[in-house]
């Protein structure tokens, strides 16, 4: 085998490298895992699939064995389709216990990126909450712990930073939803060394595009988009009105369902690392996960998507 590296080959490689560097970061990884798209986070080489899994309202099923097993099936399908981030909170009732049940049943794959939160009304210090949540998830380590809705954020953030420094958790973040407290959020993003932010972003709710997303890009903070379907209302409205998906959606960004359309709009924003749609049904999860496959909409297609939704 001839291992000589010719000048022509070198120039070709340089050309490919230059072209690749001009593309968004997810494009570089699109070829792997059957076109599943990943994005880098926290100024590291580590990557996350662009579609994660939320648990708000959907995984809070109490101790009902029937629903706990049904949710374990959703988690199983998520992992089978290469899913990474699963996000929960002590505010979400029994969701952390249901995750523990699912992981106990399915095992914990290396691809899992476990994201939890500390939330003052749940009671106890950040240390106590994280310890309890680890026990409920049946995990020894959380990849990410966030301060939920900025409750007592100074105290909690300091505790989480210490836990990160001690190697007890991977990354630290803050969350908001429904467009709440964006000014405070921005100040914390500007002044604190956080790794992740979680905020509400959808095709109809784009206020974060003005300041928070550009700031996240500037500071190298990873962004998790929650409420991508606005609690399901967006999709329900589109389906109730029997609105057809525009023909160009499949040609320009491979969308075959409204779920893909709405999710691809979100995760194709350069600042967004991943979206975390929640679902109770495996078929909906599969639909959501298809939004994590290339091709993604270009900047001009994203504008077209907004115009189309606004015209309805």
């Amino acid at each position: 085998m001839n291992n000589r590296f010719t000048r022509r080959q070198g120039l070709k490689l340089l050309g490919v490298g230059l072209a690749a560097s001009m593309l968004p970061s997810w494009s570089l990884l699109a070829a792997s895992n059957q076109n599943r798209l990943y994005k880098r986070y926290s100024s590291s080489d580590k990557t996350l699939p662009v579609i994660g899994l939320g648990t708000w309202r959907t995984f809070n099923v109490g101790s009902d064995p029937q629903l706990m097993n049904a949710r374990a099936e959703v988690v199983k399908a998520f992992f089978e389709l290469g899913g990474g981030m699963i996000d929960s909170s002590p505010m979400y009732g029994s969701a952390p216990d249901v995750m523990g049940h699912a992981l106990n049943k399915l095992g914990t794959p290396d691809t899992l990126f476990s994201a939890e939160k500390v939330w003052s009304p749940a009671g106890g210090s950040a240390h106590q909450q994280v310890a309890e949540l680890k026990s409920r998830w049946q995990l020894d380590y959380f990849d990410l712990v966030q301060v939920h809705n900025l409750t007592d954020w100074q105290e909690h953030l300091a505790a989480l930073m210490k836990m990160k420094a001690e190697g007890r958790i991977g990354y630290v973040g803050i969350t908001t939803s429904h467009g709440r407290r964006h000014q405070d959020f921005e100040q914390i993003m500007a002044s604190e060394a956080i790794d992740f932010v979680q905020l509400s972003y959808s095709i109809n709710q784009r206020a974060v595009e003005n300041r928070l997303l550009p700031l996240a890009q500037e500071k190298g903070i990873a962004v998790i988009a929650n409420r991508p379907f606005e609690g399901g209302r967006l999709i329900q409205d589109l389906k109730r009105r029997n609105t057809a998906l525009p023909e160009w959606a499949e040609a320009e960004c491979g969308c075959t369902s409204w779920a893909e359309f709405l999710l691809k709009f979100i995760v194709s924003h350069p600042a967004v690392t991943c979206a975390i749609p929640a679902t109770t049904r495996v078929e909906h999860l599969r639909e959501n996960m298809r939004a994590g496959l290339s091709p993604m909409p270009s900047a001009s297609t994203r504008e077209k998507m907004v115009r189309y939704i606004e015209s309805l």
Partner: protein
Amino acid sequence: MNDWSSYQLQDFIPFSVDIYLRLLERLNENFWPLQILTLALGIAALWLVARHHSRWLCLLLALIWAFVGYGFFIQHYAELNWAGGNIGYFFFTQSFLLLLVAFSGASVDKSIVKQHVLTNLSVVIGWAIGLAGLIALPLLSVMIGHTWTQAEIFGIHADPTAITSLGFVLILFSGWRLWLLALIPALWLLISALTWTVLGTSWSLVLFSVLATVLLGLLCKSVGGWMVKQDQFI
């Protein structure tokens, strides 16, 4: 700082409609065949109301409210909603208030009930609400798409217990006792209607309609009683 003002109604309903319907179903599964007994107690309560046995009615309802406070809220609903346990204690409080009224020696003022058109109207509303909670609403819930196994039953689930109780106290009591015994059931009905609103189902409209009718009945009873008293002074 816990900035509660930044929270919205939907933050306090951390489950979806299918999970809540499954909770209603699980209660029926877990307590079967207790439904037969609680419905029999509901019919017994109807008889007590018809015979104006207010003390025995209060004692029976006190038992039912304590059971629903534990069985519905603390044992089941609290698993889904961190506020569920606290609501259970409100149901215990209602049970205590019913006992208090039962042992306070208060009984219905039959003369007021029969004297004014408004108080008579409130009694008619009370019967309609009481029968609706006991019989009509479980049937209506099935008609709008819930399954039979999800039907809410007096003495097992919170909504029919609150609605039926509101109807019965509207028939039998007046003055401060009426308002005292109506407060917690009406508040729960409001919470429940808001819950169904967040869950995005039309069942909330049924509950809001019941609540509005109850409030009308309470006002009729109070205004009617006040007018009778005014007439007595003339």
